């Protein structure tokens, strides 16, 4: 098996070195850069490395399991395999701290994602994508991860408002990204869910570079304030109709080689938690740091 891994690594490296052409990557549609966001998976099938992500929040009691304070440490790696088609892998290390209970720790199930960019419209800064998220049951620690798998076909979208008329100039930096997913757990105990998330962003870089230079100094001219909504509605079982989730106001900060993001996690109701949490995530621009290997599909050209 070690030989097999070395072979694959050599193939990946060789394929990367074979494509010295212009590098695209990042999430561009027209003049719009859509940054990756924390709670809402962005619609781009590009090379991305998120490391680390840290989230602390209340996990409310349910099904007789007492409420816990949970801290997740995670990562995500996505690679464009074919033009506009990417594969990803992500996981979280979960620590649960219960009141009067021993704490539990362990890796969550591995999540594999596929995503394909269906349609771009550059003048209207619009992108549509579709993909499948697969939570592999039993791949994580028995203490914190479920034993069954869940499949989530998901539709993604992004829309920038740079095509608004000049009279609406200061609204042009606005953009929305979102995802709509339908979960299918392989266990009859868990409900099917409609998972919906969207992010409303105001890009100060877009304001400065495309609309009006208002003289913002660094680091503010590289920041993107945003609000994310991450929600799930149960469709069957005992909790049919229940919607849980959080509203996350925060900020993203673009630097030449990475993006940093921090948000508050505000539960939308008592079923979603009782205290405000926080989340932090760093994305490393691997296409900038290692342009010969990343920033283009493994096979074929953009």
């Amino acid at each position: 098996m070690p030989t097999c891994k070395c072979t694959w690594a050599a193939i990946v490296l060789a394929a990367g070195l074979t494509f010295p052409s212009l590098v695209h990557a990042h999430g561009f549609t027209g003049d719009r850069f859509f940054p990756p966001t924390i709670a809402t998976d962005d619609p781009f099938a590009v090379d991305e490395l998120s490391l680390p992500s840290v989230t602390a929040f209340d996990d409310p009691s349910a099904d007789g399991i007492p409420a816990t304070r949970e801290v997740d440490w995670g990562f995500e790696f996505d690679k464009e395999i074919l033009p506009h088609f990417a594969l990803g892998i992500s996981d979280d290390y979960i620590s649960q701290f219960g009141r009067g209970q021993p704490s539990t720790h362990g890796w969550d199930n591995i999540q594999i994602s596929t995503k394909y960019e269906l349609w771009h419209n550059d003048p209207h800064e619009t992108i549509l994508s579709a993909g499948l998220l697969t939570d592999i049951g039993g791949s994580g620690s028995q203490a914190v991860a479920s034993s069954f798998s869940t499949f989530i076909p998901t539709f993604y979208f992004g829309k920038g408002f740079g095509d608004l008329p000049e009279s609406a100039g200061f609204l042009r930096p606005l953009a929305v990204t979102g995802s709509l997913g339908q979960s299918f757990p392989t266990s009859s105990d868990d409900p099917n869910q409609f998972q919906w998330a969207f992010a409303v962003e105001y890009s100060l870089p877009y304001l400065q570079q495309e609309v009006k230079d208002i003289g913002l100094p660094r680091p503010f001219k590289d920041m993107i304030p945003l609000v994310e909504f991450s929600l799930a509605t149960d469709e069957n079982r005992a909790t049919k109709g229940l919607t849980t989730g959080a509203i996350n106001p925060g900020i993203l900060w673009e630097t030449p080689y990475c993006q940093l993001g921090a948000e508050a996690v505000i539960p939308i109701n008592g079923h979603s938690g009782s205290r405000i949490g926080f989340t932090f995530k760093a994305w490393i621009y691997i296409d900038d740091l290692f342009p010969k290997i990343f920033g283009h599909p493994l096979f074929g050209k953009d």
Partner: protein
Amino acid sequence: MKNSPTALAAICITLLLMVPANVLAHAFLDHADPKVGSVLAKPPSEIKLWFTQEIEPDFSTIEVHDSHGNRVDKQDAHQDSSDKKLMIVSVPALAGGEYTVVWKVVSTDTHHTHGTFKFTVKTQN
């Protein structure tokens, strides 16, 4: 397994140490003269664009168009000889009106980016 967050932190640090010393990135517009979205009392003789990274002049362009879409620049876009992040294009005496600057650049690590902005020259009375 309880050391997994430490392991993640170690991976982050290792990745940072693997970063080449001379890394380059996408070239975005840092600022321009005339400023993005500005209104000028006096027409400019050239348009200057400063980028966040050094650029490849052979693969980089700047065009200036009037409000009818006609190209009005002198088609002499070039990199400044002393500042590799600066591109300049000359324009003739511009009449009053709105102008659009369209730029496409390739940074020295082959990433390409593009953008558009407008400026206005006040009509002389």
